[in-house]
Every structure is written in structure tokens, then in C-alpha cells.
């Protein structure tokens, strides 16, 4: 499915199909697809480069152009890749005909899209998404965004020479809604003890259709198949680790450059992610931010407002606390990434809050999502080993019937 997607992208230029670049958070895939665009998500291209161990070449190219060490790895991967011609191990990434900055919560991202507009000469639409500071979206925020969506639609009409087809958008949104429900059903399986799913490492693979292919029949079929498989796993007792010892809620972007190595650090301790925030960067569908064909533009606006990184910290931390409770987790693991302040800033405070205010054992680790130079396996493993040791010790102490010690956090 992923190969097919990149193959289709590679043929877009030759087939003269228009190409739009978009960000994952709160993306406007359905509207853009209804105008016949192919959609490129440079963040996903970047993570695919990282997982194929190709991101450093692109990053070094961007640094040679003057981008600093601390600039976001996604940004540098994309700008470096553009400069190197756009060829990746998984296909050719076409140049954009339209740039849609669909997530404005990160200032660096706005600058990234401006740099692309400047160097590639494509028109830029900046979708201004207000920061989500209340549990439910505010009416005025939704109205503000719907007004922008109409501006966007008019821009697309002008760019493509096609008229907007609301009936077609509703049909696409119905398929989105269906895929979103199935995706939530998959993620909910983490409530089972033991969990039949790995809600971080596995879900990161499975989030591709919900972000990239949303609105297609292919995405719906994919999640139907996945949920059938989960049923079989439950029936046959086929779980992500043979013996589940630690149930984790994971927060943060994974180190894609060392994905398997990082995952192995978990498996060694029988640790399974039962819930995670990162697979919801494309949308917090489990909180009800789903597309609704009956309220097409309003539901798109609400969905965009509800992107995970668009939530303020009190909402993010309450969500994590809820996951710990609802999914019967033992602990929280936070993976901070050095080059992304938008996702990572505040995670140190989150760690302290979870430990001090909720008594949840929490480990904070740091490397990077794109830049392999920041992944120090010995140090990361040592911290994880110490953390899992302390969890194991607490469990064995509790099993031995020792009285609880006041003030103990782990």
C-alpha cells in the first residue's frame, strides 16, 4: 500500500496530476483530494527517509545550505532532499503545485513552508489554526476556520479550473469517518489485558492510511483487515510480547533512525505500549474529533483544531492521565526529540507532573526523530533498564506483601 502510494506520486509529474504538499496535523486531505490533487506529506517522507537510514544525507545537505544544528529534522530532511533532486529509496517525490500549511502551531513549520514557496515558486496557503485551549472547540474558532476553508476552496477552484463539488466532498468524508471509527476500534484494543496490540511501535506503522489515505476505500479496507487480525490475536493469545510484564503509555515522536533498536529495548523487559499520543498527531479521533458528512466544513475545522499538538498542555497531560487510568498502564515513557520544540517543550514539566501529582512512574528520554547523531544507544538503554528494574522491583515488593512506602513514586 505504501509502495503503491509512492509509485503513484512518482508518476504524478509525468501524468500531469497536480501535487499539494501538506502537514499531517489537522490536514485538509479530503478537500484537496476532491479537486484531484496528489498529496505529499513531507513529514512522512522524512520519517520514511529516517527509517531507511537516509535522513542524515539530506540533513547534512540542508546544514551545508546554512540551516543550523537545532533546526527541526523534518525541515532539514525535506529541504535537503529538495536540493538533492527529490529521489528516495522508496520513489521520487514530485515538486509541489500548491503548498498547504495546515498546522500553524509550529512557527518553524510556517517558515519551512515559506522557504519552499520561495525556492520552488508554488503558491502557499497558510491555514491559521487557533491553539486549542478548551476541551470542546469554541464556536468563534470554528467559524473563523470555516471562513478560511471557503477561501481555500476558492483558491483551489482558481488553481485547478474546477468547481467545488460539495456532494463529492461529503462522499469522501463518509469514507474518512468510517476509517476513523475503525482506527479508534483498533486503538481501543489496548484496553485488553494483555494487550493484543502495540499502541506505539505497531500503531506508528498502521497510522499511515489514517493520515495519508484518509477518504479512500483503501484506508477503510485496511482497518477492517487490521481489526479482524486483532480479533484473531485475542482468540489465539498471540500478543506483541510473549509475556506482558509492563503496560506503558508512550508520549512523543519515536527515534525513527533507530526504530527497531528502540523497540527492542522495550521488548527485552516485556513492556508493551497500550496507549500512545503520537499515533494521534493526525487527529484525536478517539476524543470525538471525527469527520461528519452532515457538517462537512465544520467537522473539518473541528478536526483540525483537535490535532494532538494543537492542544494546550493542561489538555495534553489530562489526556495522558486518562490513558494511564483507562488502559490500566503501569507507567509513562516520554521520548523527547531534540530538534522539535513544538512537540517536546513542556515534556519535562509533564514528567514532573505525572510523578508528583498523579504518582505515575515516568521516564523521560531524549534523542531525535530524524538525526541519528543524537541517538546514544548505551545511555538510552541504561536509563530504560534502570527504569524497568525499579518497576519490576516495586511489583515484586508488592507481591511479597511489603507495606507501601509513603511518598514512593516508582
Amino acid at each position, binding site marked *: 500500500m505504501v509502495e503503491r502510494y509512492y509509485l503513484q506520486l512518482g508518476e504524478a509529474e509525468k501524468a500531469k496530476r497536480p501535487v499539494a504538499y501538506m502537514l499531517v496535523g489537522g490536514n485538509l486531505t479530503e478537500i484537496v483530494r476532491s479537486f484531484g490533487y496528489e498529496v505529499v506529506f513531507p513529514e512522512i517522507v522524512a520519517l520514511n527517509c529516517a527509517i531507511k537510514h537516509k535522513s542524515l544525507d539530506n540533513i547534512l545537505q540542508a546544514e551545508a545550505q546554512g540551516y543550523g544544528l537545532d533546526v527541526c529534522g523534518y525541515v532539514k530532511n525535506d529541504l535537503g532532499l529538495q536540493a538533492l533532486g527529490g529521489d528516495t529509496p522508496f520513489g521520487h517525490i514530485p515538486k509541489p503545485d500548491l503548498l498547504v500549511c495546515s498546522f500553524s502551531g509550529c512557527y518553524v513549520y510556517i517558515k519551512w513552508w515559506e522557504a519552499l514557496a520561495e525556492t520552488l515558486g508554488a503558491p502557499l496557503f497558510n491555514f491559521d489554526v487557533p491553539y486549542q485551549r478548551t476541551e470542546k472547540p469554541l464556536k468563534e474558532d470554528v467559524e473563523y476556520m470555516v471562513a478560511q476553508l471557503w477561501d481555500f476552496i476558492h483558491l483551489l477552484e482558481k488553481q485547478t479550473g474546477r468547481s467545488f463539488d460539495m456532494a463529492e466532498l461529503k462522499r469522501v468524508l463518509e469514507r474518512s469517518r468510517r476509517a476513523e471509527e475503525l482506527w479508534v476500534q483498533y486503538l481501543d484494543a489496548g484496553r485488553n489485558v494483555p494487550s493484543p496490540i502495540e499502541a506505539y511501535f505497531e500503531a506508528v506503522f498502521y497510522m499511515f492510511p489514517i493520515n495519508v489515505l484518509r477518504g479512500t476505500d483503501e484506508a477503510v479496507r485496511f482497518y477492517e483487515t487490521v481489526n479482524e487480525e486483532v480479533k484473531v490475536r485475542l482468540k489465539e493469545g498471540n500478543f506483541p510480547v510473549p509475556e506482558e510484564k509492563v503496560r506503558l503509555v508512550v508520549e512523543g515522536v519515536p527515534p525513527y533512525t533507530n526504530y527497531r533498536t528502540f523497540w527492542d529495548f522495550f521488548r527485552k523487559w516485556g513492556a508493551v505500549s497500550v496507549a500512545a499520543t503520537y499515533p494521534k498527531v493526525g487527529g484525536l479521533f478517539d476524543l470525538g474529533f471525527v469527520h461528519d458528512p452532515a457538517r462537512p466544513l465544520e467537522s473539518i475545522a473541528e478536526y483540525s483544531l483537535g490535532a494532538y499538538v494543537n492542544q494546550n498542555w493542561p489538555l495534553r497531560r489530562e489526556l495522558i492521565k486518562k490513558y494511564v487510568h483507562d488502559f490500566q498502564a503501569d507507567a509513562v515513557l516520554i521520548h523527547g526529540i531534540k530538534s522539535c520544540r513544538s512537540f517536546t517543550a513542556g515534556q519535562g514539566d509533564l514528567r514532573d507532573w505525572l510523578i508528583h501529582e498523579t504518582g505515575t512512574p515516568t521516564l523521560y528520554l*531524549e534523542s531525535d526523530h530524524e538525526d541519528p547523531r543524537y541517538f546514544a544507544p548505551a545511555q538510552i538503554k541504561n536509563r530504560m533498564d*534502570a527504569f524497568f*528494574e*525499579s518497576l519490576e*522491583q*516495586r511489583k515484586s515488593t508488592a507481591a511479597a506483601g*511489603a507495606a507501601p*512506602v509513603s511518598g*514512593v*513514586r516508582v
Partner: protein
Amino acid sequence: MMKAAAGIDIGSTTAKCVILRDGELLGKSLNPVGVNIVRDAEEALRLALVDARLDRSEVAFVTGTGYGRFKIAFGQLTVTEISCHARGAHFLFPRTRLVIDIGGQDTKAIRVNERGEVADFAMNDKCAAGTGRFLDVCAGALGYDVAEIGPLSLEARHPVKVTSTCTVFAESEVTSHVSRGKDPKDILAGLHASIANRSLSLLQRVGIEPEVTFTGGVSRNEGMVRALSGRLHMPINVSPLSQYMGAIGAALAGADRLRGGTAS
């Protein structure tokens, strides 16, 4: 009589080994770590056996800790040094609630509960500033052996300010102070204060609560003990065995296994 348990702590600069039986320390050793960690670990155990006047057959369990723990092929268990320092500090000072361990390349703040279990921990991140290596480099820049600088720092009259963000930059900062005619004792006091400040931020992350026990090679430095104690505004526990705390914790974990009880 119960058989003995050995703990071997392979750090970045030294290998430490202790042999315990029924809570009694029978022998210990300390030797430098080179490129052949397997051999260094074997040597550490051999020296500790000599010190304890024991035969190898009398040691029933060997536990490895420290960064080189995975190289101790002849051991039965590996435990991280975080758990081991907590356990060791609690063994020697049972009222310990906070451990500060400053070794060759790592600084760790470890909160422990009343059973000596790890409650929370924080470590320096990918940088050796504020560790033993930092002191080694700066001592070298001033022409001293690292063992001399602690007592000298206590003789300072007007400590200078030294930043602690980078070991390499600190060395050039020390050189700059020397060229401006500053008294080396004042520079050394500044260096110790800068490490204490850096450590304080780690300690605050896990929560400061007495009693505080100082472990690791740098705990042998009187100047560092004074600087830390002053910054914390409380006395801190130090033992002649502080450098062996990780090895002691490892041996205790092994002793747990020998008893068939819960192990770390």
C-alpha cells in the same frame, strides 16, 4: 554458612569489586579500566578474592553493574548502576533518601525510598561537564594531580566564577584565569562550586530530601563534599567505601538471589 556474593562495577575509568557474606564486607578491589573490559573484570574479582582471602569456589554469585556490566561474562546477573548505588547507599546509610553519584563521566541523582528502592532518578545528558572527567581535565590544566585539588580548593580565599557548561571550554577558561594571575586555589574552588551548581539542578529534578549520600569516585574529593554540602545547606553522608557503592549494591542484589528472595 551462606556462600559469598560478589559485585563488580565496571565504570568508565575504574573497575570496583566487593565480596559480601551475610552483610559483611570480606574484600574489595579497585583497578583501572582499559580496552579489555573482560580482563579488567576478571582482575577486579581476582584482587577482591585476594583481599578477602577467599577461593573463587566460595563465591556463589557474581553480579555485574556499570556501563561495562554486559562484558562480565562469568556473572549470573546484571543490574544497572542506578539501582546498585541506591541499594549500596541505603545499606551503608539506611536513612538515605537521596543519592548523588558523581563518577568519571556520569552524574546521577537518585531518590530512594525507605527500603532502598529507586523512587526516581535523573542523569546528566550526553555531556561529561560536571563529572569526574571535568575535574581531571581542569586539574591537568593547572598542573595538579586530581587527588590534590580537593584539599587545595578548601584553602581558597576569593573563589572565581567558572562556567560548567562544557569540559573543553572550562579548560580554556581555567587557562584564562591562570594567565590573569588568579590563585590556582581560587580557581579550583570555583571549579568545585560550578560542579555543585550543576549537580543541584539534577538533584532538584528528583526532589531534595535528607539524608543525602554522596557516592562515586568524586566523593573522595573533600572540596567537592564541602561544595555540595554548602549548596544543599545540609550535611551529606560520605564513606570511605563511597566509591564502591555500586559494587556493594550489585553484591547485595546477588545475595538476594542466593537467599531465593526478591532481587533487583
